């Protein structure tokens, strides 16, 4: 059973009954190899469709997950279970669970993968054990999230029921257990900003805990402002200084900036601080204040800086591969909707697109390797709905569901392009998709960049593909 991967979390979804006999058939050696070859932070098994599991079954699955963890330093565990399953876990493992348990995939993403919750989001929680309570709150705090702990289950349900529209809390968790946990530096995407949450000592270990591939990918897809939330950092040594300096110099090549927020004066020496400032690292008193300072955010994340890497121009090699991206988009749209889009125009220009009556949504994915660049797809709301209908059906519950569907759609097109390119011995890697609900954010991000701008007509409505570097 192949897992699907979302926000750097691999999720397996078995259905029915799990026992010692069938567990190894759910996750095979091939699946283990697949996971080990992917840039993931966690491998979880969703139990949302599991009726029953026994001790042998769950132990086998844990062994398999541990095998994946042996090949790649990741967090492992289960999610989407019911209360009876949660109780069963505690019974089987005698309250000493060597993995993580997350009520839902949304809860899991508060702790692992690329965090989708905005900094400052509130999470309602209930945990019986004090040590669990503390470690959950601490981990969330490290990630810039606010844990609101209910004193008992009754209070939890009461507060939850008062938040009917889900405006106050990002999510809720009352069957959570943080077992063995890979201490990676958590990353949140906050609008045009990437926030990394660090704590304790910034020393040599930071290089192992920091996901440099994700960071480079973010630079590749056009993120420019990278902020380290340092309020819980107690000390930065010479290795930490080198780490930040190197990041800053590398980011500068893309017009990017590194900033440290909330770093206490006693956590870094004056000379180290000057060294970092000389390397272009910015210091802010607190993340909260920075997030309120729209002008500064605009200045550093708005994409005004033109620099060596971002001034890369469209070249012949990339243009020669353009048909592959166009054909992938046409083929995917045809497969998914049964309507074949027609290419109606192609021009080399900057991204100029007028706001229409209907809202435009877009998604971009970077690629790097034998060729590098960025593929951008722009849809009207209606075309986006058609493209996502295969996943979401006719009833799309929320805008975020649609945006999620669009990322998946972009993944398919980019994945198909990647396969076709590899058949021509041109190997690329893909970044995570980035979506824009507001077309202005996209145009601003790509301001001044020339690319191949392709209009594809889907029935009476166009959608666009923009390929740039």
């Amino acid at each position, binding site marked *: *059973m*192949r897992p*699907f*991967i*979302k926000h750097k979390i691999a*999720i397996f*979804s*078995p*259905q*029915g*009954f*799990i026992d010692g*006999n*069938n567990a*190894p*058939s*759910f996750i095979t050696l091939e699946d283990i190899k697949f996971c080990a070859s992917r840039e993931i932070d966690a491998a979880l098994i*969703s139990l*949302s*469709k599991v*009726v*029953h599991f026994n001790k042998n079954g769950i132990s086998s699955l844990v062994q398999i997950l541990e095998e994946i963890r042996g090949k790649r330093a990741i967090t492992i565990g289960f999610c989407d279970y*019911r209360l009876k399953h949660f109780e069963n876990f505690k019974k089987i493992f005698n309250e000493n669970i060597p993995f993580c348990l997350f009520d839902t995939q949304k809860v899991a993403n508060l702790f692992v993968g690329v965090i989708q919750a905005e900094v400052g989001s509130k999470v309602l929680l209930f945990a019986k054990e004090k040590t669990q309570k503390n470690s959950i709150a601490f981990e969330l705090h490290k990630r810039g999230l606010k844990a609101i702990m209910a004193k008992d289950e009754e209070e939890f349900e009461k507060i939850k029921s008062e938040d009917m529209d889900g405006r106050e809390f990002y999510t809720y968790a009352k069957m959570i257990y943080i077992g063995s946990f890979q201490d990676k530096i958590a990353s949140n995407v906050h609008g045009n900003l990437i926030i990394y949450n660090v704590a304790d000592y910034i020393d040599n270990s930071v290089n192992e805990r920091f996901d440099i591939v994700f960071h480079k990918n973010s630079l590749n897809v056009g993120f420019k402002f990278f902020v380290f939330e340092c309020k819980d950092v107690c000390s930065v040594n010479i290795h930490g200084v080198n780490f930040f300096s190197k990041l800053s110099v590398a980011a500068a090549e893309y017009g990017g900036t590194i900033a440290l927020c909330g770093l206490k004066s006693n956590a870094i020496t004056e000379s180290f601080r000057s060294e970092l400032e000389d390397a272009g690292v910015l210091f802010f008193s607190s993340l909260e204040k920075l997030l309120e300072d729209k002008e500064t955010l605009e200045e550093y994340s708005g994409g005004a800086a033109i620099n060596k890497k971002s001034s890369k121009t469209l070249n012949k090699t990339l243009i020669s591969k353009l048909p592959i991206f166009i054909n992938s988009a046409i083929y995917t749209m045809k*497969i*998914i909707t*049964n309507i074949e889009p027609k290419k109606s125009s192609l021009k080399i220009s900057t991204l100029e697109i007028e706001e229409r009556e209907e809202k435009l949504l877009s998604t971009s994915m970077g690629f790097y390797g034998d060729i590098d660049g960025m593929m951008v797809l722009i849809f009207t709301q209606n075309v986006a709905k058609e493209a996502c*209908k*295969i*996943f*979401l*059906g*006719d009833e799309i519950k929320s805008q975020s569901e649609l945006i999620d569907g669009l990322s*998946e759609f972009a*993944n*398919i097109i980019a*994945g*198909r392009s990647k396969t076709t390119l590899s058949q021509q011995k041109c190997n690329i890697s893909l970044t995570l998709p980035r979506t824009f609900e507001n077309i202005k954010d996209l145009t601003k991000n790509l301001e001044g960049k020339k690319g191949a701008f392709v209009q594809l007509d889907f029935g009476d409505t166009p959608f666009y593909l923009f390929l740039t570097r």
Partner: protein
Amino acid sequence: MVDSNKIEELLSSIPPLPKTLQMVIKALNSDDLTKAAKITQEDHALTFYLKKLVNKPYFGFGSQVENITQIYGALGVLRAKQVINSYMISLILPRSWVLFDLSKEGFEDLQISTIEAWEAILIKLEIKDWEISLSSTMLPASIIVCERLFGEYENELRILKEQRFITADKILKNRTGEGFFDIAIKIAKLWMMPQKSIDILESSSIKESRERHKKEIVQISKYLHLLFFHITSKPKFIRAKLNDIIDLDIEFIEDVEDRFYEIAKELD
């Protein structure tokens, strides 16, 4: 990708129930096994199927049974009806299996496992109703429908499933408004299966239909829903990729799952 036209195409390729089979069913409905055997002998394909199937270990006939009258006698009316239904389903087998790692024999194994488990469940539930017994024979038909509709889109299906957990049944519903069981039920109606069997099958798999059915039908259909996942949780059928073709509806089965599990443990 699969669309409503493809469903129409599939349905129009389903043969009507052959005359011989109609007559065999009529004889079985009148509990006339001798007449059923006599008619069966005129149909070589059916005769061959019966001989092959009933000599499998599940039926436990010790020595080879070759004589059709003996076969019917050994099967009894209820099992004979189940076997005839399984034969009807085998008439719509795909030419080759692409989506699933199955063969003709593997599919027969699936059919027998389903019938066997359902029979044991009904005994435990103290239900003696041949129309209810027959309802499980159409479960494997949904797998044939899936293979025949999605077989040529194996690659596309794989790509879609890499993005999120989505079953082929859900994809079909999102695209056409119909799922595998909607189609299996149309086939069952075409083959004039008993109404109660159809109702149970419908309630087990089509959420929207449950309000229409009697409470007892809905209750039994929960066991049938679980049966599908009990069978497709077996290692050989997980390996055949049958575990994630339709969605398990946990809310639907919640009140019977413990009872089902107790029964299933005994079955295993």
